[in-house]
Structures are given as structure tokens and as C-alpha cells.
């Protein structure tokens, strides 16, 4: 009898992305949230924008941001998949939907690198 729970899973791929995004987020998220979501209107939109905001106009800066956006999205959505399992919600297709959203965010963020 074939039991789906007894096959080698692809989970290591998602776990790897979760781990990378989790570590990236742990190191960078608090500072980036403070800087971009709170200080940006005051220090980024003025005439002499802060150095960090200027950095995010360069290719390297935007690559860094795109990496942050996509990896933390993988981390967050992977956790949401397991969280939904924990509260017994939305059994069918939750993983496919969440990972599709993460893929979409990845593609969009890569497209966003060149838009400056």
C-alpha cells in the first residue's frame, strides 16, 4: 500500500528557504522596518535623502531588498502553511496556494530590481 506520509518529501526545499528567510529576517527585519516603514517619509522623500535610501536606488541595494522581500516571504508563508495545519484550517491546497504566492512575490521582487 502506498502511504503518502511515508515518501521522501520536498519539504527540505521549503525548509531551506524558511531557514534562509528566517535568519535574514532575524538580522535585518527590525532595522529595515524601522527605517523604511517609519522613517522613510521623513528622511527618504526629502531633498537630501538618507544614505540608506540612496543605496536602495542602486542595483546592489535593490538586489538586497529583493532578496530580503522574497526570502522573508518564503519564511512567512511556510510558517503560515504549518500554522493552518495546526488550527486544522483549509486542508486542501493550502501549501500550493501559499508557495504559489511566495513564488509570485519572488518573481515580482526580481522584476522590481531593474525599475529605477
Amino acid at each position: 500500500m502506498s502511504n503518502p506520509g511515508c515518501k521522501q518529501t520536498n519539504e527540505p526545499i521549503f525548509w531551506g528557504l524558511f531557514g534562509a528567510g528566517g535568519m535574514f529576517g532575524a538580522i535585518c527585519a527590525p532595522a529595515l522596518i524601522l527605517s523604511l516603514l517609519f522613517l522613510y517619509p521623513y528622511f527618504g522623500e526629502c531633498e537630501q535623502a538618507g544614505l540608506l535610501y540612496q543605496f536602495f536606488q542602486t542595483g546592489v541595494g535593490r538586489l538586497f531588498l529583493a532578496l530580503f522581500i522574497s526570502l522573508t516571504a518564503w519564511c512567512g508563508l511556510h510558517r503560515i502553511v504549518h500554522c493552518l495545519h495546526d488550527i486544522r484550517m483549509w486542508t486542501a491546497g493550502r501549501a500550493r496556494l501559499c508557495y504559489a504566492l511566495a513564488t509570485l512575490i519572488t518573481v515580482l521582487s526580481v522584476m522590481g530590481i531593474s525599475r529605477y
Partner: protein
Amino acid sequence: MADEKKLLLKIQRYNPERDSAPYFAPYEILWDDQTSFLDALQYLKDNVCPDLSFRSSCRMAICGSCGVMIDGVPKLACKTFVRNYPHGATVEPLANFPVERDLVVDLSHFLEYIEALKPYVIGNTRSPADGPNTQTPAQLARYHKFSMCINCGLCYAACPQFGLNPAFLGPAAITLGHRYNLDSRDYGKNERLRTMNTENGVWSCTFVGYCSEVCPKHADPAAALQQCKADSALNFVASVLKCKKNKEVSHGDKT
């Protein structure tokens, strides 16, 4: 017992021949500072309700028989003292296992999973003539913590993932497997990883961490699971590189 005090315990009772569902019954016990919950249960069985069923053996936290939920927390009855519950307590059978009768649960899942992970030295071809198979203190230290498990099942009662999915191999079994994976005398790691690599293997774990919190021997199953995930992920990468994924394993295919 000079200063005997009275206390109310609410104990979950269930008689499969009579009851359709478990219920709580109140019992008054006498206790002093040295009374463990196991002593209290034995007192009740001897004096109040001879039909009360519970498992126990060594009375000293080494046999792992007397696991129960005390106020909803998995504990060894022999290692938990009534003096720490001055306002009374509830005693239930270990969570996440089927209840056979009163405080006795069916551990057969758990025992099956321990067997599935082959917690013994595999593939060592030494014979007694080769002399003792020595280990350095550093080699011992790699797995020593994980070898402390007494198979009491408290970590299974603490694990919501086992509760949600009883096919999950669970903390203690995987910890025991990992203990042998880390043993320098063992060569069975790849064999065990085939079982661990599955969805019901290490990948059901979400690092709740409560297993390590309740473990009476501080075997730290949560850490073992996390290390097994790292091993399993490396194994996954290796098998992708070698283009031979072991799709099916024997565990769970018994029917």
C-alpha cells in the same frame, strides 16, 4: 505522618466496559511533604477505589511507566509532589494517546515508532575478538544527552503535532534514532534517514519545543529533531545530486 493534610484530586476515570466517555471523579487524599502523586494514587487504590487503574513500577523516575497529565501538564507521577499543588489538582491519562482505562493509555503507536527507527547499532562488523570498541569522551558527548530517554512518552503527550497527526513518528523515537546516528560505532544513519526523511518523519515537527520542556530526563528531543531536519535536508540534497530519491520506505506499509 504527623502533620497529615487533606487535599482534593480530580481523577479522570474510564471503564471501557461501562462508560461511553471518560469523566472526572473527586477523591480526597491525605498527604505530607513527601507524598508524590504516585503515592497518592496508590493510597487511593489501597483504601478508596481498588478498581483505579494506573501504570507504575520503579517509583524513582527511571522506568518511565507512570506518566500522567497533572493539571494538563505531562509529568511522571512519581517525580511530582503533591506539596506543589496546595489547591488540589486534576490527574488525567497522557494526552494524545487512546485511553484504555482510567489513567492507562495505549502506547502501541509509540512503541512501533521506536522500532521503526532502529535504535541499536547497525552495520558494525567488529567481533568480540577485536576487543572493546572504544570511544573518546568527545565522541560520547555528541550523543550522550539524547541517550537519556526512558521512553515515558511525556514528549508525545506534549507534542501537538503528534496529537494532530498520530502517524508522526514523534519526539522520543526520532531522538533515539538520532542518538544512534551520532554514535561513532554505528553505520546505520542512511537506513534510519530513509524513515526520517518522510512527511511523518522529522518533517511533521514544527519546533513547538514543549517536548524538551516536559522531558523528565532533559534529553532535549526538540534539539534532536532539529538536528535530524538538518541531516535530512543534507541527505535530500545528496540524493538529488545523485538522482536517486528513495521514494518509498517500509515504515507504515505494514497493511
